C-alpha cells in the first residue's frame, strides 16, 4: 500500500520536476496530478542557510550569499522531503551524529526514508550540532527543521 507520506513525497518530486501532468496507477488506485502553469519559485532553499541538498542527488549545492555574513549564528538543517527520520544509516549502527559533534560541510547527518529509499541529509556548512529537534522514527515534513547547528566562525 502507498502511505500518505509516500504520496506527499511523490507530489514533491513532481512539483520540482519539469513534468506538468502526471498519472499514476498502483494496485487499483489512480492518481492524477496537474501543475498550474505558473512560475515556480524556489524560495525555501535560500531561506534556510543549511543543506536541503537536492533530495535526489548530493553535491548539488546552491551558492548562498548567506555565507559571508553570518558569523557564529545558529542555523537549522531541514528535511529535504516528507518521510521518516532516522539518526542511523542502518539498524544497530552508531548514530550518524550526536549533539556536541562537529560536522563538516557535506557530512551526512541523518536519513529520511521515503518509499523504502533512504535519503542522506547533509550539512552544507561546517559547525557544531547543538540540538536534535526530531525523534528517531518520527515522520517529518518537507522543510521541517531537524537539527540546530552552531555555524563555525
Amino acid at each position, binding site marked *: 500500500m502507498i502511505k500518505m507520506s509516500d504520496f506527499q513525497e511523490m507530489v514533491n518530486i513532481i512539483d520540482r520536476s519539469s*513534468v506538468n501532468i502526471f498519472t499514476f496507477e498502483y494496485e487499483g488506485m489512480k492518481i492524477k496530478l496537474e501543475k498550474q502553469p505558473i512560475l515556480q519559485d524556489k524560495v525555501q532553499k535560500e531561506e534556510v542557510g543549511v543543506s536541503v541538498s537536492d533530495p*535526489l542527488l*548530493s*553535491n548539488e549545492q546552491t551558492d548562498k550569499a548567506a555565507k559571508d555574513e553570518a558569523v557564529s549564528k545558529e542555523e537549522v538543517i531541514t528535511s529535504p522531503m516528507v518521510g521518516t527520520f532516522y539518526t542511523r544509516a542502518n539498524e544497530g549502527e552508531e548514530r550518524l551524529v550526536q549533539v556536541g559533534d562537529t560536522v563538516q560541510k557535506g557530512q551526512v547527518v541523518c536519513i529520511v526514508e521515503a518509499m*523504502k529509499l533512504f535519503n542522506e541529509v547533509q550539512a552544507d556548512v561546517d559547525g557544531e550540532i547543538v540540538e536534535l529537534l526530531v525523534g528517531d522514527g518520527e515522520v517529518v515534513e518537507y522543510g521541517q527543521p531537524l537539527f540546530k547547528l552552531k555555524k563555525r566562525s
Partner: protein
Amino acid sequence: MSVQIIRPGLLATIQDLGRYGFQQYGVVVGGAMDSLSLRLANVLVGNEEGEAAIEVTMMGTSLQFNEDTLISITGGDLNPVIDGNPVPLWRPIFVQKNTVLSFTGCKVGCRAYVAVAGGFSIPNVMNSKSTYIRGEIGGFKGRALQEGDLIPLGEENSFSRKIKKVLQSKLEQRSFASVDWYVPFERYVNKSVVRVLKGTEFEKFSESAQKQFFEQEFQITPQSDRMGYRLSGASLGLKQPFELLSEAVANGTIQVPSDGNPIVLLADRQTTGGYPRIGQIAAADLPVIAQMKPGDCVRFQEISLYEAEQLYMEREKEIKQIRTALLLKKWSFE
C-alpha cells in the same frame, strides 16, 4: 562494452534467479545464493530483476570496466574500493572507462552482487544465464570467472542512460560517482537468526533433537559451498530409523544424514534427496543464511506456514515499492 576480470578472487560467477522448469530432468535450479540482493542490484541500474549479475564470494575479485558503465553493488559488504576509495553499496554508481573495482575483504556477509546496466550479453542455457559449475553449463563458458575473461554487456535502457548521464556530470576528480540515497537492505545481511518451518519429517526426530534444533546454535563448517552448508552442533537423531523414498527438496531444506549433522541445501542443491528433513528455511530468510560464512553461528527460530507466507508477501510488496520509488527518481532527474 565489456567487463574484464583482472583477478577472479576466491570465486566469482555469473548468476541470475536460476534455471526453472528442468528439475524434472534432474537439472539443478542454481542462481544467486542471495536472490534478494541480486534483484535489488538489477533494479538499481534499471534492469529487469532477473538479469544476470556477478556473484562475488568473500574477497580478492577485481573487475575492470572497459567503457563508462552504470553499476550497483549489493549484498555483503566485501569492502569494494576504486582507486583506494570505498564504494558505497545499495545504490547506482557511475564508473568511468577503465576503472578497476576491487573487493578487498569481508566486512559484513560473504557474497556481493555486481549488476551492470544492460546486463551481460551471454547465451541462455535452459532459459537461464546462471553458472552451474558442476554441470559446466550457463554463465561465462560454463565455469567460474577467470583472469582475462571479457564479458560483453547488453544494451542499456532509457532509465539507465538517464541516471548514467546525471551521475557522469557529478564525477569531479574521481573515477566514480553516486547518489545520496540507497535501499536500506544492509540490515538483512548481518543476522544470525534464521526463521524456519518444521520440515516434512520433523515429527520423526527424537524429542531431544526437535528441542535442540530450535534451541541450540549450529556452526557453519568449512565443508560448505553453493550446494549446501554442513552444520555442526547438536547431533540430531531419529526416534527410530526408517527408509525414506527420494523426493524433491527445495532451497533452504534442512536435511539430516545418519551422522546427525544437519545440511542446509542451497542454490546449487540437488533436485531430490533421501534424507529426513527437519526444517525448511522461510524464503524471506534465505538471503540471511546465504550471507553467512564458515565459522558463523546460526540459530533456527520456528515460524508457522502462515507467518512464512506473510513474510514472503511483505518482501514482494517492499520490492515493488522500491521499483516504484526508483521510477519516480528517474522522473525527478528530468
